[in-house]
């Protein structure tokens, strides 16, 4: 791999997330690992651009149960302190199992119940157009989440009102397959007049190119192929780990695998 610094950084964040899970006995680690690359690259490339206050891009993590990944990225880009991650889910912590916009700096929407982030983003997109704000709004949804009817209601509106400042990213880790197999997800979106990009959701370059692609002629959908629990083969695609906390020996083994 030629992007070792990136990989090292992601691995460092994963170790911190694993430690938070272990200490707090709370969290959805595999879902967080599947979306971490997406969050990291979008924050780095589009959201947190130093002191440049003219940039008004915003991101909503609609699959709020992956909050561990969001907090790790917020800490990495200076919105919160890294030490806060260790208190995750605790009585005195502002970092809950799902992100709360009224508690955590950098959190745009309080998510957790699925199917809420995209409608909120539609409203923000319309507001940006009214205000001649040229920023973009990014929304990350899970593939299971798009079972929700509000997804398809929102897509109708995104098309009808040509919300070209909105970028929908599907974290396609196939966690929804156990209920409804979506099959060719791309084809589900092709009935809409959208720009659709399919990428490897763990490939820094592909994420960056998809995010930075400034077409602005059509609303954008990024289908990001990801793996639940990516980077830890012991938990990858294992439903048992969806909301599980490692014991002492498992923690030691998982941590070792991330060194």
């Amino acid at each position, binding site marked *: 791999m030629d992007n070792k610094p990136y990989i090292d950084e992601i691995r460092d964040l994963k170790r911190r997330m694993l430690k938070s899970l272990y200490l707090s006995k709370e969290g959805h680690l595999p879902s967080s690992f599947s979306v971490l690359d997406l969050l990291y690259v979008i924050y780095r490339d589009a959201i947190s651009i130093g002191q440049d206050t003219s940039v008004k891009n915003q991101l909503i993590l609609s699959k709020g149960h992956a909050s561990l990944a969001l907090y790790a990225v917020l800490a990495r880009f200076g919105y919160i302190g890294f030490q806060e991650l260790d208190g995750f889910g605790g009585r005195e912590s502002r970092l809950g199992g799902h992100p*709360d916009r009224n508690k955590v700096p950098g959190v745009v929407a309080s998510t957790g119940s699925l199917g809420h982030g995209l409608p*909120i983003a539609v*409203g923000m997109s*319309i507001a940006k157009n009214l*205000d001649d704000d040229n920023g973009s709004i990014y929304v990350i949804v899970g593939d299971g989440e798009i079972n929700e009817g509000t997804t398809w*209601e*929102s897509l*109708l509106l995104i098309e009808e009102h040509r919300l070209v400042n909105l970028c929908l990213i599907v974290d396609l880790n196939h966690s929804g397959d156990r209920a409804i197999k979506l099959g060719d997800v791309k084809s589900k979106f092709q009935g809409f007049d959208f720009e659709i990009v399919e990428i490897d959701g763990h490939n820094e370059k592909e994420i960056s190119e998809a995010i930075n692609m400034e077409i602005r002629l059509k609303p954008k959908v990024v289908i990001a192929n990801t793996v639940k629990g990516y980077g830890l083969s012991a938990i990858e695609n294992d439903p048992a780990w969806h909301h599980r906390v490692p014991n002492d020996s498992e923690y030691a083994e998982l941590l070792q695998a991330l060194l």
Partner: protein
Amino acid sequence: MRKTFAKISYEIQREDESVFVLLGDIGVHSFQNSFRDFESRTLNIGILEQTMIGLASGLAMSGKVPILHTIAPFLVERCYEQIKVDFGYQKLHGNLVSVGASFDYSALGSTHHCPADVAILSKIPGMEIVLPGTKVEFEKLFLENYNSSNCTYFRLSEYENSQSFDLKIGQGKKVREGTSASILVIGPILDLVLESVTELDVEILYFNSVAPLDEDLIRNSCSSGKILIVEPYYSGVLSVQVLRILKGVSLRLVNLGVSCEFPENYGSRDEIYESLGLSRLRIREELLELIHE
């Protein structure tokens, strides 16, 4: 009341560029002036109420003042979790304006009835719940509160009281003095109550906002300790509040509202009310029993 709503919304949109009107494909014709003059801030969003709520919260986050409108069951019951999370939990401002509850669309059946709205919305922390008794009351309450920092539910009715009261949100009014008992009545059924108790020596307290509630008025009245609560929706919302407000006071409290069942009949609003236990006769009977026991 709905025509007044369209007129006032237009005036507010004209004065305040942050105001954004969303219609759930209901009442569209009434808002033709807003569509014409404020095209970018007036949308017939379509028949997708849940998304309409989320979208409106996104507008609110972005500094806009959303006004949402459709028929009560579609606005409240269908979207309850969206209202709870997107407005309540996120602490966002907005105006949910319904029409039709509880039984204005009496002949259309239970899909279009909404006697549960006040009860369920009262379980969302921070919600303001307003039931104007007349269009004049609505106009004042809406103008004074459309840009408050809370989410406010305005429950419009096609029925009105014959008299309007100049009340702020959270303010009630003693409309009649009396000593033998107190009646607490909500919104556009005041006439029903007044007609039921013409010659009786009872105090009548009128409220057009349930949340916030005029606690001082209740605390400083009700000296007989005998209270009849008359609500135009599923009964029981106010009694919990009254018990809390009058804690320690010896009370005889009777709830009279709509019983929790689907009506078997069609007919007028009052015919539905009657079949579910809310009528002039019932009000009078309950009151006489309360006074004489």
